[in-house]
């Protein structure tokens, strides 16, 4: 879609700051912390999602309540992240007090003093990667610059999660996702070549690119042109190469 292009420099900037910082703190924790300091919100959490809904895996949360937001949605099966992940648009609820959406989840978060929630889906086509949730103690909308910033953090979070899962390890390789059509086409082809799901196929494509020092889109172009075929015996593509 049109929306990703102008955002990409900011996404790259967020990712490069994350890659440089570090120490003992995990990438998702750094991302959530950076998101919290960049936006007028009270807490930020990131959770993994599957096609069936929340996975129960909270990747990072800036505080106890942000973690609870994720856990309640998993327990209750309803809430903005669930809605955001099923659709592909952000779910923005600036005033939970005046809202009757999500009866049980809504009551739980209101009791916890959360007044506004903003959930951003992390998706690549049919691949559901996760969701990024921002909450605030006070009601009110996210202004446009903040929305833009939040969407950039969501793109960055998608890249971070895929990076963590593709086994490349080296944070120097952390960058914005390549959204070219052949990357998605190659992903689909690899599902058949390896007998795996789309998520795994995309991870293997990326891992191969990193292992061979090439870009994801140039490897994808080779797959689409049938110059490269994935199989489990091929160096760089086999499952046991991944940590």
């Amino acid at each position, binding site marked *: 879609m049109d929306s990703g292009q102008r955002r990409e420099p900011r996404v790259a900037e967020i990712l490069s700051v994350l890659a440089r910082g570090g120490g003992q703190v995990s990438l998702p924790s750094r991302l959530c912390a950076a998101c919290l300091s960049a936006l007028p919100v009270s807490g930020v959490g990131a959770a993994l999602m599957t096609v069936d809904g929340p996975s129960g895996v909270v990747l990072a949360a800036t505080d106890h309540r942000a973690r609870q937001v994720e856990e309640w949605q998993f327990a209750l099966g309803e809430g903005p992240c669930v809605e955001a992940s099923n659709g592909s648009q952000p779910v923005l609820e600036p005033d939970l007090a005046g809202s009757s959406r999500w009866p049980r989840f809504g009551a739980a978060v209101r009791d916890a003093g959360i007044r506004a929630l903003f959930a951003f889906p992390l998706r690549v*086509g049919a691949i559901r990667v996760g969701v990024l949730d921002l909450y605030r103690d006070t009601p009110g909308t996210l202004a446009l610059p903040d*929305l833009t910033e939040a969407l950039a953090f969501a793109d960055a979070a998608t890249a971070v999660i895929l990076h963590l899962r593709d086994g490349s390890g080296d944070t120097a390789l952390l960058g914005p996702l390549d959204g070219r059509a052949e990357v*998605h086409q190659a992903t*689909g082809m690899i599902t058949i070549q390896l007998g795996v799901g789309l998520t795994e196929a995309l991870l293997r494509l990326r891992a191969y690119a990193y292992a061979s020092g090439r870009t994801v889109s140039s490897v994808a172009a080779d797959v689409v042109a049938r110059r490269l075929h994935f199989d489990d015996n091929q160096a760089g593509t086999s499952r046991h190469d991944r940590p």
Partner: protein
Amino acid sequence: MSREQLLATTFVDLADTLVANFDLIDFLHTLTSRSVELLDVDAAGIMLADPNGGLHVMASSAEEARLLELYELQSNEGPCLDCYRSGRPVARDDLTAMSASWPAFTEQLRGVGFHSAQALPMRLREETLGALNLFRAEPGLLSEADLRVGQAMADVATVSLIHERTIAAGELLATQLQTALTSRIQLEQAKGVLAERVGLRMDEAFEVMRSYARGHNRKLTDVAAQIIEGTLVDEILRAK
């Protein structure tokens, strides 16, 4: 292409939803991008309502338009919302009048460099599907002539959408929105799956999917989802 030719092409495109590969998002993108080409506006966006009256940002010609519409939904004010609720065109003469009606929205609008926003309903008789939002960098309203062209485009698109929805045998608009929103990338992923499974080129894979969808009166996006799930490949093979 002259403006007249583009206008004619646009009306044909907007009337043509009876193709098997009809893609709602593509269709709405056509409406926003042609609005910018044909009318004296700098950006356009579309919101459509689901059966519960919840509005969704469906398409936009520029990132700023998408953000402004998301902002409208969030803050519950703005021309597109008023337009959807009233079913009538909504415009204000200048920024002062806009600020009086939509203070928060107008502030955000100026923040991204626009000085005029107006909305045209996507409405047929009593049914309003949504609204077309038009943004200008320069202050001031669209000319009468432009307004008529814009409304005609919105009207044709509305009739097409209502027709498409009827054909989909009662399928709810919300479902269509949901599947359509991720359809772009998903379609590419499905092309890859099918191309590899059957041994086709990407364009051939697309043609097979499209003719299967057409032959079985199915939506292309649903067919793509099933191919990704792995529940349709054999059936497509047999249909060849």
